[in-house]
């Protein structure tokens, strides 16, 4: 049966297969804007798909977006689906999105940890990590947000494979992480990276592994301030913002620190909402409100990137 991307139920949670099927539908509906590329395979050999939003050009400045690196944070994958659809639907209709995509490419990995996500649907809804086997331990998986080569193994990550913040045997040991590293390095023109988590209502930027302010701290902070203000204007959801180390605690080996240290100036990580009653079990009725309020904040960052080339 032929389906269209906008007939998908964005207000429900979906399995990995449903999300991967939907990606194909989105590509089919917007063939001149969206394509699907595979950047690698997960530990359990699932494809790692990225949606590429591009209106042409050659190796344009690009933005990397990812959701769902922690698999149990279901509202992030759901927000990823909604946001990707929004980008596609608004192109050619909304002047801001149109102008953005006329100059900037967006790469969007919606299910960054597919093994973990599939596992949350089949066996353990509260699984956070990858599903790789750890030599010498009966505990499975590595925290992919402690596995990056930026202060790898330092404070805020664990050397215990049974811990939820286990950093893994070495930096980029997880194919889910290595595939992104290889992709961003080989692209060479990624100007922003936004990694989306839940559920602490925060917008953060480097550094996480050290307390030293990033060289671009002031600009990143001002942009974060504007973004959370615009987010709050939608439903009044209050976010805190700042460097990871100042806002939560020292956390080594994170995505955004690696990106920043590898030349991606605009590196941010969102912690999307919860009202404090459900945590990772946020009811599906809150997917669209969450995605809707996140959109203006995301757009603030994207537009800033477009207007501040470097």
């Amino acid at each position, binding site marked *: 049966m032929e389906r269209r991307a906008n007939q998908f*139920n964005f*207000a*429900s*949670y*979906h399995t990995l297969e449903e999300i991967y099927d939907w990606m194909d539908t989105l590509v089919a509906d917007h063939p001149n804007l969206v394509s699907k590329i595979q950047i690698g395979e997960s530990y359990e050999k699932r494809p790692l798909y990225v949606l590429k939003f591009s209106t042409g050009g050659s190796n344009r400045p690009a933005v990397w977006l990812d959701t769902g690196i922690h698999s149990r944070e279901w509202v992030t994958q759901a927000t990823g689906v909604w946001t990707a659809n929004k980008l596609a639907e608004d192109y050619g209709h909304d002047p801001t999105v149109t102008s953005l995509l006329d100059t900037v490419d967006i790469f969007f990995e919606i299910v960054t940890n597919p093994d973990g996500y599939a596992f949350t649907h*089949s*066996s*353990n*809804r*509260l699984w956070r990590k990858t599903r790789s086997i750890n030599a010498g331990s009966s505990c499975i998986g590595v925290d992919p947000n402690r596995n990056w080569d930026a202060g790898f193994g330092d404070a805020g990550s664990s050397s*215990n494979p*049974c811990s*939820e913040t286990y950093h893994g045997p070495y930096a980029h040991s997880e194919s889910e992480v290595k595939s992104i590293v290889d992709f961003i390095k080989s692209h060479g023109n990624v100007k922003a990276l936004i990694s989306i988590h839940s*559920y*602490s209502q925060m917008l953060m930027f480097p550094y996480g592994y050290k307390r030293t302010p990033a060289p671009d701290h002031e600009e990143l902070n001002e942009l974060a301030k504007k973004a959370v203000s615009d987010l709050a204007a939608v439903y009044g959801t209050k976010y805190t913002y700042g460097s990871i180390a100042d*806002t*939560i*605690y020292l956390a080594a080996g994170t995505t955004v620190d690696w990106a920043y240290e590898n030349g991606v100036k605009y590196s941010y990580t969102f912690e999307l909402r919860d009202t*404090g*009653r*459900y*945590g*990772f*079990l946020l*009811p*599906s009725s809150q997917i669209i409100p969450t995605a809707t309020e996140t959109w203006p904040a995301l757009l603030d960052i994207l537009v800033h990137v477009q207007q501040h080339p470097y």
Partner: protein
Amino acid sequence: EQLFVGDQVLRVVASSEEQIALLRALGEQVELQVDFWRDPTKPGRPADLRVPFSRLQAVKIFLESHGISYSIMIEDVQQLLDEEKRTMMLSRR
């Protein structure tokens, strides 16, 4: 399939750096199987931890004996999971 019947999520508010250190130490005790959903960060900011039913008493005694205030954020994790599954099934139909 792992079930979470009777597991609770506790919302804990530490009032000092000392209490935050205690909470982090709690998380390091593998036998208690505490799963931090929201990590302890700063005094006054909430931390959320899922505690298996079989360890609830021990964890609550730990919190109370150190004067760390908490409330029950989720009474029974499995009930919420069942509800989530029902919603997905309905949506799929």
